[in-house]
């Protein structure tokens, strides 16, 4: 299985580069695009592991919806061109240190656990119908709970964003 290994390393390196650029770039839109690359890399790894449905769903949801919403938000609020100030703060060094430590700890644990196996082990990939069946039987409760989460977030977002009906607005004597 040389092919998947090479593909994995290419994807991983691209993702790592994009990830670093994501936090170092000073342009919000570029950051969103780097995020897109990272997410696409994740999808590619899913595909590499034979999780076709998951991989394309990742593309559909994250790249097709979430990053687009990021871009939408950026453009609605502050579509700055070039470098924007104030994207950095002076805790860069601290943050980088923490990131490196977390990475080392993770990498160490992973290496210790799985380091011996260097091959990508492909088990039989799950078909969509199997996935759906599992969701509707064993995982039906979390599945339904997730729909509650979505409903609640919809309601929450709307109530926070919506302007009240005129007769509903009362004067708010808020003083600081």
């Amino acid at each position: 299985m040389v092919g998947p290994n090479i593909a994995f390393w290419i994807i991983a390196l691209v993702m790592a580069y994009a990830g670093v650029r994501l936090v170092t770039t000073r342009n919000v839109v570029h950051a969103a695009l780097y995020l897109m690359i990272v997410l696409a890399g994740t999808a590619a790894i899913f595909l590499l592991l034979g999780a076709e449905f998951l991989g394309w769903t990742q593309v559909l949801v994250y790249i097709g919806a979430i990053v687009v919403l990021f871009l939408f938000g950026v453009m609605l609020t502050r579509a700055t061109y070039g470098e924007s100030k104030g994207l950095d703060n002076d805790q860069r060094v601290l943050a980088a240190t923490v990131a490196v430590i977390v990475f080392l700890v993770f990498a160490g644990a992973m290496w210790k656990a799985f380091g011996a196996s260097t091959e990508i082990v492909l088990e039989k990939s799950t078909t969509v119908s199997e996935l759906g069946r599992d969701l509707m039987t064993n995982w039906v409760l979390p599945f339904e709970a997730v729909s509650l989460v979505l409903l609640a977030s919809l309601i929450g977002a709307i109530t926070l964003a919506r302007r009240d009906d005129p007769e509903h607005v009362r004067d708010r004597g808020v003083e600081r």
Partner: protein
Amino acid sequence: MDWVDYLIRSVVAVVVFAAILGTCTLLVWFERRGAAWMQVRVGPNKAGPFGLLQTVADAVKLLTKEVFVPDSADPLVYRIAPLLSLLPAFLALTIVPFGPGFHIGDRYVPMQIADLNIGILWLLCMSSIAVYGYILAGWSSGSKYPLLGAVRQSAQVISYELVMSLAIIPVVIWAGTLSTSGIVEAQSRYHWYVVPLIVPAIAFFVSGIAETNRPPFDLVEAESELVAGAITEYGGVRFMMFFLAEYTNIITISAITTTLFLGGWNGPILFGTIAGWSVVPLWGLFWFLLKTGVLLFVFIWVRVSLPRLRYDQLMTFGWKIMIGVNVAVVLAVSFVIALMEQGALPMFWAPPGR
């Protein structure tokens, strides 16, 4: 799969690609000539017979123009955006079965570039990625009209993407597969899905018009408001790529509507199944092209006939009407199918293909 199979597939891909480019050219010509015909004027008539070569002339003009990047633009993103627009448009077409596969000797020749078993998902992915072209073009141009166009675009596409997905779900439930060729086959024995699923069919086509930013949903590039929307600052070959992408998308939407709802390459029952004609591949291709052609005509017909919506009408229509109706349809269809499988309802229309 040995190298001959790969070769066959490559040939199919090249043929399809060339055919699409040709169709785009024709489509642009018809958009102008046909619109002129409907509006009782002449239209392009100088280049070639009936002005058929007008588009070719335009293409040559655009190809030979200077390639430039505006000063205020973000250079890299400005350059990438047209590619991001064109690529998904072509990729989406790869899953369309243009006709039944056939055998030459013992080699199987599919009339489809890639028969993915998650074809529908692929289609949705590509149409959701296609939005990047416009958004990034609008942002990277560094100018206000493109930016406004891009903002409108992202909101519009995300809204109608939902409608589109919801309109596909009944088909998937009914056919029991995510593969486009499977869906066509499920329709080959019985009625086309447009019969029981007329509401999703219309919803799909309408949201397709919205996704491709065609009139009456072309607020993204509303000339009277935004000059040319996201692509205002583009010229030459990059402009042409956007142009090409738009027309490829129109073809994709028509072809997918045909595939999902109009029976794909199946002829009407009388001509197809009973007479045993559908085994002849070119006969299937003929029906596919005919149906797609009719839908392409509708695209242009709608453009010429209907006035542009207001933005709030667009959003209200999408969120309050289309999504609501389609959610109801999804529920109803699931219910009907469950009852049919339980034997509580007769299997009228068409049994689920599972």
